[in-house]
């Protein structure tokens, strides 16, 4: 018993140092995300625009589909309906482990379908790898200037490819687009996803496109130049989009965003499926951080030193040198920005909280007791509001009681802090509903109010699936798509 008490006291004695480390870590984690605030402001006001062009490029459209007979036909119809020269578009579908009529529907619609059966390598990345290999064999990668990637549940606005072509014509090598939602108002689960995609646009894509940085590819609705897959498709992890983003940034590519190119996507409506998908995202996020983090970190300091493939232009005058310096800064900052996005800050935060507060602070209270500890502490607006009316303070003499009650109060303060943050996050949904009013489908006010209150659950789910992903083995499972909505239903017309 004396040994246990001695250990507790020793741990408690290190509290002051632990608190200093805790604060320094907190400061570092805050400083590295300061630029995100400015992204929000830029995203409120600006986005990059591209000049409309009539110079049409030749593209391949790649679709990975697993048992998508309900929706694949609608996507192909929306591609065939594009105001773009159809001779310049070739649709390739990989029917991946399909047991339904997906392949038949695709072929009936006049598209090229490759069937793949593989029980071991099940991710979308492997399906795309298989598709790229087949395109290389039958047509050649260089036969197409650019490659689009879509999910089978997507629908494209009539001018989608023409607008993406505008960005491609201006020299962009990787381009993402505006992701709208087919089933925004189906239920609260789909609405949280829909708001999340819009948040990504407002908080990341728009600002990064204006600043010529690299935004993140989000699974579907993007175009890239053929040079990116000249050695095949190498992204086979459970979140191939994050891996591709990190790799492209490491290679010095800019990833831009075109706000005028809009497509629709179906979001999960079942909480069970949403949890499964979020767990996969979280795992993929962690894996991408482990795989690409060191490379991105090195890029911040060494710039483009190790990039061999990029053309090195001879520097003739001061302007060339200046451009080279600007490009180097751009590349380093894009690497830093992508690394910050991949960094699992929630994991770092919970670990430092558990060590510093739940363990060391509680041990410290064993020796020093609890003196006037605020029950409703925390920097949230909720805490400030409650402290105006309720002033609950806890005082306990040193000893085991102080240790146990300190642990409970510390855990409560974390829950209370998160409740405060939940309420604060509601502003974001209100903001998004206002700024994106013209693009979000018309929804009754009562539903909007409901979705405003359910929106913060998206980040809460993300937080806990990240914790869970640390200890769970995640396998890729398909997300069922059943929406019968067509692009004509959304846009009207024939």
């Amino acid at each position, binding site marked *: 018993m004396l040994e246990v008490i001695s250990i507790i006291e020793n741990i408690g004695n290190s509290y002051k140092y632990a608190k200093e480390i805790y604060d320094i870590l907190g*400061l570092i*984690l*805050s*400083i590295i*995300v*300061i630029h*995100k*605030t400015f992204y*929000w*402001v830029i995203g*409120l*006001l*600006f*986005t990059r*625009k591209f000049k409309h062009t009539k110079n049409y490029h030749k593209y391949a459209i790649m679709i990975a589909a697993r048992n998508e007979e309900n929706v694949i036909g609608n996507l192909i119809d929306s591609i065939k309906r594009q105001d773009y020269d159809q001779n310049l578009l070739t649709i390739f579908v990989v029917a991946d482990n399909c047991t339904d009529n997906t392949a038949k529907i695709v072929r009936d619609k006049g598209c090229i379908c490759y069937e793949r059966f593989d029980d071991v390598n099940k991710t979308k990345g492997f399906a795309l790898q298989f598709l790229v290999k087949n395109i290389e064999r039958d047509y050649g990668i260089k036969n197409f200037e650019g490659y689009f990637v879509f999910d089978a549940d997507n629908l494209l606005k009539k001018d989608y490819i023409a607008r993406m072509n505008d960005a491609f014509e201006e020299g962009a090598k990787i381009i993402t687009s505006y992701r709208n939602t087919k089933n925004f108002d189906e239920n609260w689960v789909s609405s949280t996803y829909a708001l999340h995609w819009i948040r990504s646009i407002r908080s990341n894509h728009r600002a990064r496109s*204006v600043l010529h940085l690299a935004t993140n590819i989000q699974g579907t609705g993007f175009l890239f130049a053929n040079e990116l897959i000249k050695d095949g498709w190498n992204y086979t992890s459970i979140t191939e989009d994050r891996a591709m983003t990190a790799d492209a940034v490491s290679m010095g590519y800019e990833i831009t965003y075109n706000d005028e190119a809009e497509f629709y996507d179906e979001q999960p409506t079942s909480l069970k499926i949403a949890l499964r998908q979020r767990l996969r995202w979280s795992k993929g996020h962690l894996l991408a951080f482990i795989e690409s983090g060191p490379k991105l970190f090195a890029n911040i300091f060494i710039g483009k030193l190790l990039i061999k493939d990029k053309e090195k232009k001879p520097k003739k005058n001061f302007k060339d040198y200046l451009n080279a310096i600007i490009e180097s800064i751009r590349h380093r900052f894009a690497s830093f920005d992508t690394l910050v996005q991949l960094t699992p800050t929630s994991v770092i935060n919970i670990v430092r909280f558990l060590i510093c507060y739940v363990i060391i602070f509680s041990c410290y209270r064993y020796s020093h007791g609890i003196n006037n500890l605020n029950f409703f502490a925390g920097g949230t607006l909720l805490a400030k509001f409650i402290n105006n009316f309720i002033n609950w303070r806890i005082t306990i003499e040193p000893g085991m009681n102080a240790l146990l009650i300190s642990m409970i109060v510390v855990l409560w303060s974390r829950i209370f802090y998160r409740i405060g943050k939940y309420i*604060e*996050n509601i*502003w*974001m949904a209100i*903001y998004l509903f*206002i*700024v*994106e*009013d*013209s693009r979000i489908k018309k929804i009754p006010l009562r539903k909007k109010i409901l979705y405003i209150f359910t929106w913060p659950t998206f980040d809460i789910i993300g937080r806990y699936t990240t914790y869970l992903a640390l200890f769970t083995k995640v396998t890729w499972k398909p997300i069922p798509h059943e929406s019968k909505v067509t692009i004509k239903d959304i846009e009207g017309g024939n």
Partner: protein
Amino acid sequence: MKVKLQLKISKEEIKVKNNIYINQIFTEGLATTFYQKPKIFLKSKIKNTILLKVLNFLILISYIIILLLVICIIFTFTFPL
């Protein structure tokens, strides 16, 4: 001569790009609800041109205040320090 001509074009291009960015502040996002719609509404209701100009100016001021307010809200909730 050729170089000078190229510089002139690039300056003009920069000017056009800047204008595109300035236009966005008054045509997209918050502007559709708090600037464009009220302007269209007033134009349909008021025939007196002087009064319309004054009210349009007031809408512009109100819109800028709303914009600054939203930027303050963004800073309040997203600034990490």
